[in-house]
């Protein structure tokens, strides 16, 4: 079966994987980049370029753990060791189900999440195609809890960052001078945090093993590099301290506009490290089963070309539809000024990267929503419509069962076609 249809399965996996990552690039990335565009920190064109580079970098450098989780930690294939094709059909069904469901939901404007769709789809076919015991329920439990916890973590972090900006910069006698003084420190924090979480015992797949002190040193070096680069860019604005506090506030927003370049990169990196796995995880599972001639334990490393397919899918999605979605979102988020956008993005990116490091697939969008609410709680935003939080609950309630049902349907379809 596997030998006979091997190339068919791999082709299907690539096609469905491309479809899924295309959907991620077309829709999902916009939520990660929209805040930067909306606050005027970067143009649409810059957003596309940043997204293309850092989504890929995120998937490549820090995406391994989530990919592994989706690829092999959710399902225990022991009961079907003799029938590897079941897992192949299942993963193909999961991909197709999640991608289709996302397309329909985006079309209808329903609140769904890529991550929830794919997890629901994988669990769905596993329950029916293999059996209830095949699902690693404790793992699923951890993932589901993280969906509730992660937006709260993002919100808390955003609240604290916003408060610190108020405390150290905005609510002082010399806000402009304090902004210049602390900007490099905040940027150091961006570089340090993201790189430390990524490096911390996290680069084994690239054959780079750093000890804990080494990780810290590299993170400090990277943070300093970001701080210096930011300092250089801020100096290029050539601003003189304005007379009135009112004018100083708009100068500070310009400074944070520059700083948001870096959080935009961090956000794209974070998104790539977590969400790209939704597309390439199942694809990698299919490819490794077929190429190993039916080996289900899947000890092989993730082939680089799969990552590249995922990256291409995202860029394709961005180029075909994503830029328009970013544009639409960007024009609607004008109320979020750079100091606020910086707080929300830094918090969201840090939370997502942390989740990626622990291999937990989370929803970047939900975390971003949590972060914006955190900034709002710090009295940073004029008016928030919190009905979107209801949408998050709906996403949990609707997406999992629909993803599961669709995937079960496709599973039987594939079984019928190939058996």
């Amino acid at each position, binding site marked *: 079966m596997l030998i006979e249809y091997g190339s068919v399965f791999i082709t299907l996996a690539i096609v469905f994987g491309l479809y899924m990552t295309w959907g991620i690039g077309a*829709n*999902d990335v916009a*939520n990660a980049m*929209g*805040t930067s565009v*909306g606050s005027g920190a970067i143009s649409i064109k810059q957003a596309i370029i940043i997204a293309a580079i850092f989504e890929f970098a995120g998937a490549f450098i820090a995406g391994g753990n989530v990919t592994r989780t989706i690829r092999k930690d959710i399902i225990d294939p022991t009961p079907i060791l003799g029938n590897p094709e079941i897992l192949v059909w299942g993963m193909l069904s999961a991909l197709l189900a999640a991608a289709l469901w*996302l397309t329909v*939901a*985006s079309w209808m*404007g*329903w*609140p*769904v*999440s890529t991550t929830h769709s794919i997890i629901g789809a994988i669990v769905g076919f596993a329950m029916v195609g293999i059996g209830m015991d095949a699902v690693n329920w404790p793992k699923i439990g951890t993932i589901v809890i993280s969906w509730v916890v992660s937006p709260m973590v993002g919100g808390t972090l955003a609240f604290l960052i*916003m*408060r610190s*900006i*108020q405390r150290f910069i*905005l*609510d*002082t*006698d010399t*806000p402009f001078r304090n902004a210049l003084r602390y900007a490099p420190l905040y940027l150091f924090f961006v570089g340090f945090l993201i790189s430390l979480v990524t490096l911390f015992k996290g680069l084994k797949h690239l054959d780079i093993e750093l000890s804990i002190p080494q990780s810290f040193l590299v993170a400090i070096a990277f943070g300093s590099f970001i701080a210096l680069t930011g300092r250089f860019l801020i100096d290029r604005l050539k601003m003189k301290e304005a007379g009135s*506090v*009112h004018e100083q*506030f708009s100068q500070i927003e310009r400074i944070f506009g520059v700083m948001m370049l870096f959080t935009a990169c961090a956000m794209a990196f974070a998104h790539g490290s977590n969400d790209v796995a939704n597309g390439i995880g199942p694809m990698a599972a299919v490819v490794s089963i077929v190429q190993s001639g039916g080996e289900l334990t899947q000890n092989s490393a993730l082939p680089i070309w799969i990552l590249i397919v995922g990256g291409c899918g995202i860029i394709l999605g961005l180029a075909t539809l994503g830029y328009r979605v970013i544009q*639409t*979102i*960007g024009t*609607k*988020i004008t*109320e*979020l*000024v750079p100091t606020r956008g910086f707080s929300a993005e830094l918090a969201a990116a840090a939370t997502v990267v942390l989740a990626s490091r622990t291999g937990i697939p989370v929803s970047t*969008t*939900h975390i*971003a*929503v949590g972060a*914006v*609410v955190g900034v*709002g709680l*710090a*009295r*940073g*935003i*004029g*008016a*928030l*419509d*919190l*009905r*979107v939080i209801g*949408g*998050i609950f709906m*996403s949990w309630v609707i997406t999992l069962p629909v993803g599961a049902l669709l995937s079960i349907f496709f599973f039987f379809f594939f079984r019928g076609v190939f058996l």
Partner: protein
Amino acid sequence: MINISSMFAKSPFKPLRDHMNKVVECVVPLKEFFEALNQRNFVKVVEIQQQISLAEEEADLIKNEVRNHLPRNIFMPINRSDLLEMLDMQDTIADVAQDIVELLALRRMSLPTELRQDLILFVEKAQSVCYMAQGLSEEFGDVLESGFGRHEIKKLLAMIDQVSSAETEADDLEDALVRRMFEVEDKMKPVDVMFWYEVFEWIGDLADYSKKTGSRLRLMIAQN
């Protein structure tokens, strides 16, 4: 797909400021209006009256827009009802200005020459209180930007105090004017006298509602 932009509601603070600017447009021509009235230049009087009516209508439109975009479940850094009341106070200033010019344009009343100088002084004072209230809404923008920082709140509170004391000064001018009116009222048409007292009251209201705008603002920022 949850669209993150759907959580950003239209902020009411910019329209609130726009509204106050429109309200001030109703107040600015008042001095010119009384001067035209004193010179019995009724072409100009009617012209200014129409100009103020137009600005008042536009202020109403902005007011409705703010209200329409402020559903109950919206999350803001301030209390929703305080904001709506502040909007009402601002709007009353425009309404009063319109009432003043409509009555006077209709009745073409003129004041005894000896009172005219005092009236202009009183109008100027009331106008300046309105302008100070307008300054409050500018400063409030900085309070928002700083995330309700103590520095900016302190500045705004000081400005609100200034509006209050300016309003007291306007009151004093009104008292003086009423007293002088009392001395000469026997020489005037009784109905005119009654309406002039009413108009003085209304001019005082311009300052009074400006002060009340400040009081609402004080409630809005003093929650934490």
